[in-house]
Every structure is written in C-alpha cells, then in structure tokens.
C-alpha cells in the first residue's frame, strides 16, 4: 500500500512533467500554433513563458543572485518557513474560532440565524482588499508584522472549519439525540460524547482546506505588509524579474505549493492518529459534499 502510494505520487509527477514538456515541444515544433491550423496555442512555449522543467528545478540548486552565496532553494525554504510560521498561527486561531462558531451555532439557533449570514459574507470579501487594511491597522497599533499576516491567514482558515464543524455536530441521527435525552445527559455530555466524536470525520477535511487556505492567506498578507522574509515577498520580487529569470518565479510557486502540501500532510497525519480507519472519509470533500473552498477563488 505504501509502495503504491509512492508509485502513484511519482507517476503523477512524471505525467505532469511529460505534459509540460510535451506541450512545449509541440509549440516549438509548430511555431506556436495548433498542428495543421493557424490557431495560436493558449500559452506561448518559449523559454520565457514556459521554462524547461529541469531549468526550474535546476534554478533551485543555483545561487539566487549572480555571485551570491545562498542557493535559491535555501532562500526559498527559509522564506517558506517564515510564511509557515504566520500560517500556523493563523490556522490554529482560525480553526479554533471556526470550531467555536460551529459549537455556538449548534447550541443556539438564534446565534446561527444572526451570525451565519456574516460568516458566509466574510468569504465574499476579496482578501486582497482587506489585507492592506489589516496591515495598516496592525501597524497603527504597533503590532509586529506577522500579527496582521496571521489574522488574514485565520480569516481564510476559519470558514471551512465553522461550516463543517456545524455540519458534523448535526450529523448524529435524531434517534441518537433522543437516546442521549433518555439518559438525561447534560448538553455538555451530548456534545463531548456524541456530537464532537461524530463531527471529527467532518472536521478533518475542513482542517485540510484550512491548512492550505492559511498558507494562501499568509502569502497574500505578506504582499502589502512589506514583510521582507516570507514567500509572498519572494514571489513578488521574482515576478518583477520575470523577463530575465522566469524559472525563479516558477521555482517559488513550486516551493509555495510544496509548503501547502506539507502542511496538509501534517493535518492528514493527525487525522490518521485521531479518527479510526473505518470512520475516515477517503476523499477531501467531507461525508456528503463538504465545502467548496470558495476562499481560494476569492484570493485568486
């Protein structure tokens, strides 16, 4: 089973590289049009628009600046760790807030009616627009930079957790709730012994979405924060030198994606240790559909 996972992981990478290089080779061969037509390919295939995959990976192991000491990989990993720090704090705060809202809503229909519209609306606000506001406010209050960044990260992370926690807490059958009532269980006992255990299979898919959303939040938050050490800044500066060294921007994107994957992987390990095999959801969508990470669309 482990071997199969490794093979399918490597296979996926091989397919992606083949598609990338195949498309590039096709474009080079036809001069940038679909074969046998004069219709342009959607993306140019020259070295600037699509560097070779090996050039992207190779740039990671070359000095970031001509004559510089540090390899690009080292610089990016260091930046990624900074970003990750803000993201972890944002993830933890966001998940706690999301979980708390879920518990509040399941206990109080009044709170759900009153607050749920705002919870949903919060995700319709583009995070790119509120990020600078939070950064300015944080600066005025003389908070360190990472506070605003973590708040933006938490802002994206809390939503899927709140929605799926509520859904999970409501998942026990009506008869299970009646059973608890027949034992004269207190609301706290119903929560701890029935609703929260029943919610765990719903909670973890949401935590995985929250993990990747918190990374995106942190990267987006770094842009207006003038935070020089994180991935967001690295992406911004490599984007400005895109025409001369496009592979570095692609390399940063690669590292950002790997950071997100690693974080999601951590959550998956915790899930594996917490939720028994038979109760775990095999996909990331949650037991019946789960939440669509609309936050990702909002930040794009």
């Amino acid at each position, binding site marked *: 089973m482990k071997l199969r996972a490794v093979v399918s992981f490597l296979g996926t990478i091989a397919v992606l590289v083949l598609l990338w290089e195949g498309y590039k080779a096709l474009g080079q061969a036809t001069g940038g049009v679909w074969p046998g037509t004069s219709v342009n390919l959607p993306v140019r295939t020259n070295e600037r628009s699509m560097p070779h995959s090996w050039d992207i990976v190779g740039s990671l192991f070359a000095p970031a600046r001509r004559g510089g000491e540090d390899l690009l990989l080292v610089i990016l990993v260091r930046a990624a760790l900074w970003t990750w720090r803000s993201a972890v704090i944002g993830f933890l705060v966001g998940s706690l807030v999301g979980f708390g809202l879920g518990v509040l809503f399941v206990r109080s229909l009044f709170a759900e009616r009153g607050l749920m519209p705002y919870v949903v609306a919060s995700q319709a606000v583009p995070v790119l627009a509120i990020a600078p506001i939070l950064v300015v406010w944080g600066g005025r209050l003389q908070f360190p930079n990472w506070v605003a960044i973590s708040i933006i990260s938490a802002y994206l992370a809390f939503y899927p957790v709140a929605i799926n926690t509520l859904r999970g807490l409501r998942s026990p*059958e009506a*008869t299970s709730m*009646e059973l608890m009532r*027949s*034992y*004269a269980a207190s609301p706290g006992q119903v929560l701890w*012994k029935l609703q929260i*255990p029943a919610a765990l299979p719903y909670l973890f898919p949401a935590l995985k979405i929250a993990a990747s959303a918190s990374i995106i939040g942190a990267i987006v938050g770094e842009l207006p924060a003038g935070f020089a050490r994180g991935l967001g800044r690295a992406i911004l500066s490599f984007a400005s030198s895109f025409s001369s060294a496009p592979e570095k921007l692609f390399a940063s994107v690669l590292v950002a994606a790997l950071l997100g994957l690693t974080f999601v992987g951590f959550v998956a390990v915790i899930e594996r240790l917490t939720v*028994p095999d038979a109760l775990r959801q095999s996909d990331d969508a949650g037991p019946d559909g789960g939440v669509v990470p609309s936050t990702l669309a909002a930040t794009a």
Partner: protein
Amino acid sequence: MTALDLRDVAMVFNRGGSNEVRALEDITLTVGQGEFVSLIGPSGCGKSTMLRLIGDLLRPTDGEIRVNGKTPAQARTDRDYGIVFQSATLLDWRTVLDNVALPLEIMDIPKTERDATAREMLELVQLGGFAAHRPYELSGGMQQRVAIARALSFRPALLLMDEPFGALDEMTRERMQMELLQIWQETNTTVVFVTHSIPEAVFLSTRVVVMSPRPGRISEGIDIDLAQPRVFETREEPQFYQHMTRLREALRKVDDV
C-alpha cells in the same frame, strides 16, 4: 403497582398550522408492573409517538401521563426507563462494551463498575465474546442485541421498544423474541413494545393494545393468556392461532374506519 398511567392524552403536531396533525386522541391506558404490552396498529396510528410521550422525548398537548407514579420528565431524569429503537443507533467510534456502558458513563459511574455491569449485560444478550469489537463488525441482529444490553445496563424498571426487530430477518427475529422474553422474566421489567407484526405481538405480550389511525386512538385491548414461559412450540398451539385471528380481525376493523 402501576408502571404506566395515561389519562386522556392527546398529541397534536403543528397545532393551528395548515399542516396540523392530530397524532393521538383520548388515550387512556394503564400498564401494571411486570406487564408486557404491545402497541399495534397501521402506520400513522401514533404508536411511536405514544412511546416518545411516555419517555418524555415529546410533550403531550393534552392529558396526563404518570410513569412509576411520576411525571415523564421526572422519570426520565431518574433514569426509570431504557429505550430501544428500530435502528440500533450504536456509536461506531466506541467498542461494543463502551456502547453498552454509555448510559452508565453519563451517570458518572466509575469505570471498573460500569465495565463489569456492561460485561454482565453482554453475557445476558449472549455477546460476551464481542466486547472489544466495533459495532460495524457485527450483524444487524447482534447490533440490536447490543442496543438492548445498553438499554438494560442501568436496570431500568421500564423498557420502551420501538419496533426493535423490524429490520431483522424472520429467523433472527424469532430468536431475538425468545431472548427478550427470557430477559423480561429474569429482570422483571415492564415492557412497552411497538410492532407491526401480529405473530410478534401475540407471542411476546401479556396484553396487546390495538390502535386506529388518524387520529391515533386505542380501539381495543386484548389479553393474551397463553401459558408462561412462552417457548418455541407456543407458536404451534391452537390458542396461538386463535389469538392471531382475534387480533387480525381487530386490526381489520380499525383499517376499515
């Protein structure tokens, strides 16, 4: 001593609304300590609702209910009854033993004591070897036995059962009926049992209450004076068939209304 006393009980859902349902009307019923009473009737006759009113899972819109001389709410708080539904509703993240011990856990009984009691209850339903299993590893009949053990774990004086064997195949069902009767005799519990099945009602009960639908009313009470204890051969006796016929006719009458 009376275990149950219902007087002029009525239950209306969504009262005053366009979707108002008169589920129960004029329900007057007394059940003595140690009786095994079945409620039978076509769907929509309110038998499950009646069980939920007794268990204080619903509040009646009218009338008075006494469980062991107390209000249903008080009886529930005192854990006077155990309830079993058609689906076992076991918690999949708990072992079979921990499922049976759940009510005891909620009553804050120390772990060693509740585990010992839960083991005893599992023996009673002949599942002693399955304590460490997970519910989803058991067959439907075994799961339902776990649910019965759970309901009995705190030794309630009253057992409420809502079509507990409705989802089981005929053979498992007959075996479970035998087991239930043995438990009933050993523990001297009062049982109120909701069912759709005429042979089941006759085989198990000391009295069958026939109900008519829309609104649910009690139309007849039939005493089943078959010899105790009931055995497999009871189903082959002529008196068994006479009771079945009597009950079937009573049911046909309420269906015609």
